[in-house]
């Protein structure tokens, strides 16, 4: 039955909602947002296609088995080897160090900010944190190379001028504001009625935070963790500047390495002729990087969906 057939029941001329205009506005809004959604989907699709178009010829020349099992990465040398795990090890190492710095410190600052800091402090500390997140990473890169590395070298014997330790630490500092800010949002969103309920049972502040607030905000906190892990894996500038460009299958944080991103930068800026096999390697590396971040993001999406709390 259409809406208009209810007309006979209307009591008064004073009520005349403009249904056709509403419908029209509704449709155009859907169309505009649909267009934007389409653009972002097409962009993603385009990126994947670009990666695939050049990665496929690469894998026609280099068997996938070699790609996954070689222990050296020397596409620019005469004796060529293509062991992607050389680059993955470096990415893994720098990311783990960064995460070890960023997650605990980020979570602690989030807890401090939302639960302990006075409201007035929170009001300007939070935006300050977000500004810190916007400092260009190239600045952090030189901070690592020119400040952190010399300081660390003064007491760590055998540390090389380029190394994953200081790159990782500084990268951790760079992503810390993001972790802190996102976790803080999640913690702040926990309804105060839950806090009151916990206090009313005779809990101390610590018990309220650890027993109720953090568990209630868990899905948001974990989402912020995973997002920052993706950022660490994809981070480019800091590791290119401070960790070096020497592909090295190692988990030693004191020696130069080349992460996947640093390698892509190196080849893009270098003189490997476009279309050569050496140049195509960056598409294979890019595709690997894309897959790793995709898995992380899908996991994060699943996790948030699975554990998200709905408060009435």
């Amino acid at each position, binding site marked *: 039955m259409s809406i208009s057939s209810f007309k006979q029941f209307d009591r008064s001329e004073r009520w005349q909602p403009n249904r056709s205009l509403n419908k029209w506005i509704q449709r155009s809004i859907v169309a505009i947002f649909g267009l934007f959604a389409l653009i972002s989907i097409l962009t993603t699709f385009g990126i994947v296609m670009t990666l695939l178009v050049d990665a496929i010829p690469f894998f026609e020349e280099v068997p996938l088995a070699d790609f996954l099992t070689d222990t050296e990465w020397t596409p620019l040398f005469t004796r060529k080897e293509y062991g992607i795990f050389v680059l993955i090890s470096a990415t893994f190492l720098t990311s783990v160090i960064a995460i070890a710095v960023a997650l605990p410190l980020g979570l602690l600052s989030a807890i401090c900010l939302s639960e302990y800091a006075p409201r007035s402090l929170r009001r300007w500390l939070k935006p300050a944190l977000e500004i810190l997140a916007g400092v260009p990473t190239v600045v952090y890169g030189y901070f690592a190379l020119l400040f952190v590395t010399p300081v660390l070298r003064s007491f760590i014997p055998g540390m090389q001028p380029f190394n994953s330790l200081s790159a990782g630490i500084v990268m951790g500092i760079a992503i810390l504001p993001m972790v802190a800010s996102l976790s803080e949002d999640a913690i702040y969103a926990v309804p105060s009625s*839950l806090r009151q*309920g916990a206090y*009313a049972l*005779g*809990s101390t502040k610590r018990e309220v935070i650890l027993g109720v607030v953090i568990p209630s905000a868990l899905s948001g906190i974990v989402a912020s963790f995973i997002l920052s892990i993706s950022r660490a894996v994809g981070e480019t500038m800091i590791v290119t500047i401070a960790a070096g460009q020497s592909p090295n299958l190692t988990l030693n944080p004191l020696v130069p390495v080349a992460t996947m991103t640093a390698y892509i930068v190196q080849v893009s800026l270098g003189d490997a002729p476009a279309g050569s096999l050496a140049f195509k390697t960056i598409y294979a590396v890019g595709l690997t990087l894309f897959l790793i971040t995709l898995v992380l993001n899908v996991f994060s999406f699943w996790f948030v969906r699975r554990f998200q*709390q709905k408060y009435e």
Partner: protein
Amino acid sequence: MNTNTLENSVTEVIFQLEKVSVYYGSFEAVRKVYMDIPKNKITAFIGPSGCGKSTLLRCFNRLNDLIPGARVEGKITYHDKNLYSKDMEAVEVRRRIGMVFQKPNPFPKSIYDNIAFGARVNGYRGDMNELVEQSLRQAALWDEVKDKLRENGLSLSGGQQQRLCIARAIAIEPEVLLMDEPCSALDPISTLKIEELIQQLKQNYTIVLVTHNMQQATRASDMAAFFNVVTSEEGKRSGYLVEYNETIKLFNDPQEESTKEYVSGRFG
């Protein structure tokens, strides 16, 4: 003036309020309340919405401490000790004075953990399973949830959530139970069950009950306090205590005109 003290009665006084005012910032939400709350009795707070019943209730377990800007003036004693003195620990106070909130607020944890939480933070040494079952039984919820104790408390219906909150509050065996409209989200059957529970708890607990339901106040309470709102010249609405007496007297023979209108439903 009416007398709000229980001088001539035999029962022991557990809370004594002397000129208690509560402010939110500069707004005076509750004005100069004097009253004595008897031990092991049920005291009902009634009055129109916004007259400060919840606000006053939160003074008894110092929950107003948590609200930024909230301030309590005057003196509240609990067993003759000043509730707001420096050496009184708010955490210890709240462990002895439990609360059920106006809106159900179960933790986003399993039904089991909702109840075990309070027991754990208070160092309960007994059998946890037994405590959970007994508390749920007392709150008339056990039969509905006994097969899904591991499910999230938020998956329950509103009324079930409220009973979970009641179970959670009585699990830590407080001495006083503050109940802020505990039945407002419940159906008549569960309401009756909760009222039975309240009667049963009376032997060991002191209960302060906020309610909008006149029948409930007459059925359940021994003492009743009627609060009303005065509007100041600047248009601020402050709550104050109009009349406080034994429930039978307050309902059958109210001294104040506004009480009479309110309890007979002709308020407004």
